[in-house]
């Protein structure tokens, strides 16, 4: 059932999947309002139970490739999730296009930017899909220009802006306003100096052996990173792990729904 298909079998499976999806979609719209909540709860529970059982069920086989009777279905189930999510991409594109088309149609402020966005989308779709099917060099060049020439460069530009934002954010954070800000400033200064050769040169005269070695700037920086920073991060991760588990349990058992979708159950 979940094997890769080719040729006519592929198209038969695709047609079958489309028919089943349409029937399922209409069947879901016919479900009475009263039954919708139990239905969602049931599906959520069943989906979660599959992954929980696969994780907890005893496994057998050679080390590194241990499986149980559910392991083989993990990939098909992940694929189903991917397919469901890809349906939503259409909704995203519709949202984006409708907002910007309206802006252009009504000549609202900044309509030219909206027009550029719509045109860029059209060009990118033609270039990216076209390169797979049209062997003409112009489509390959268009794709190269749109993807590598424009999009990747724009991405890199946005990324490089972060360097300037780091400076402005650090300036505000490191101003001595409180005890905490002072500790932050001193630790940041030690770590920065410990990472660069010019910083390490300051304490180069201190012997790197015995008790005095602790006062070399690179050792101080290392100590802050390994003995102060790492345990703090681990403690944060620890709390987050338990919090994540509790939230996942509430979602799985449909206890969470009351918090934002509907009234408290």
């Amino acid at each position, binding site marked *: 059932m979940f094997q890769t298909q080719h040729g006519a079998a592929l198209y038969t499976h695709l047609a079958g999947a489309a028919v089943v999806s349409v029937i399922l979609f209409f069947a879901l719209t016919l479900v009475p309002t009263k039954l919708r909540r139990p239905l969602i709860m049931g599906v959520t529970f069943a989906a979660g139970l599959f992954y929980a059982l*696969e*994780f*907890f*069920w005893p*496994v057998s086989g050679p*080390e590194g490739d*241990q499986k*149980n009777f559910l*392991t083989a279905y*993990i990939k098909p189930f992940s694929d189903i999730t991917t397919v*469901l*999510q890809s349906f*939503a*991409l*259409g*909704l*995203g*594109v519709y*949202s*984006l296009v409708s*907002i910007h088309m309206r802006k252009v149609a009504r000549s609202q402020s*900044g309509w030219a930017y909206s027009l550029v966005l719509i045109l860029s989308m059209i060009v990118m779709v033609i270039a990216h899909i076209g390169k797979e099917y049209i062997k003409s060099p112009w489509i390959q060049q268009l794709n190269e220009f749109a993807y590598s020439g424009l999009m990747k460069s*724009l*991405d890199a530009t*946005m*990324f490089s*802006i*972060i360097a300037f*934002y*780091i400076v*402005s*954010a*650090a300036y*505000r*954070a490191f101003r001595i306003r409180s005890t905490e800000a002072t500790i932050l400033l001193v630790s940041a200064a030690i770590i920065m100096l410990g990472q660069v050769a010019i910083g390490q040169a300051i304490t180069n005269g201190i012997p790197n052996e015995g008790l005095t070695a602790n006062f070399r700037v690179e050792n101080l920086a290392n100590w802050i990173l390994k003995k102060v920073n790492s345990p703090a991060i681990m*403690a*944060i*991760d*620890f*709390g*987050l792990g*338990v*919090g*994540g*588990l*509790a*939230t*996942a*349990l*509430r*979602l799985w058992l449909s*206890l*969470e729904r*009351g*918090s*934002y*979708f*509907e009234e*408290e*159950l």
Partner: protein
Amino acid sequence: MNHATWPARVILIVISAVIVWTVIAAQRGKKLFIRRIPGLTAIEEAVGRAVEMGRGILLSSGLGGIDVVTLQALAICTNIASAAARYGTKVQMPIYEAALLPIAEDAISSAYNKAGRGDAFSSDDVRYLSNQQFAYAAGVAGMIQREQYAATFLFGTFFAESLIMAENANMVGAIQVAGTPSTTQIPFFIASCDYVIIGDEYYAATAYLTRQPTLLGSMIGQDRVKIGILFVVVLGFLLTLGKLPLVKNLFEDKDMPAASYFSPAKGGK
């Protein structure tokens, strides 16, 4: 593929049972206390400021897909949207993951309805931007500069784009509250935002804001689990000092014969 070892099965089932039990006890009316969390109190302050200034609020659920972290971010954002709608303040939410769009739209529209301002909700206010990291960041930065928000709330999974968004909001003088489980981004938020929700406070936010029994119970359950694990850590430390690494063995990646869990450490390390 990862699978549970026997100790992991027992530990996870015990932890889950404690959390679910506390949730059920809270739902049955048990009174639970929750301490004041400054970062979460700031949410109300930021909404109030936006109302006073008559400018909008930006909500971002970060770069996550439909997962626990993003759904928690959505829960927080929904509560903020509800408070903002009550006072007639506009809320906008750019979305990174298309699959999240209908869920976010439904949640924010429900928040408006809950506040009795369903008519004020516009589907354009929850909009999909891009599923490219820096395209999304550029889009959010553009929205911040154009709309001049009074407050921005950044909750969810963030990566390098966090600083682009936070610094742009700072440029327009917005009060900023951020919370993320991405520990590598916490320092950037601390440097650029007014208030940051750290660690498990992120998962406590909805309980703190709504005081709903289910969420309060879950939070108290988490605290009990953490106390239990802390006890195990101390016990593990003491047992390892006595060259009996029982706790360390329990967390090994593979199952061992039962007797091996109690075998003394070799080499004295």
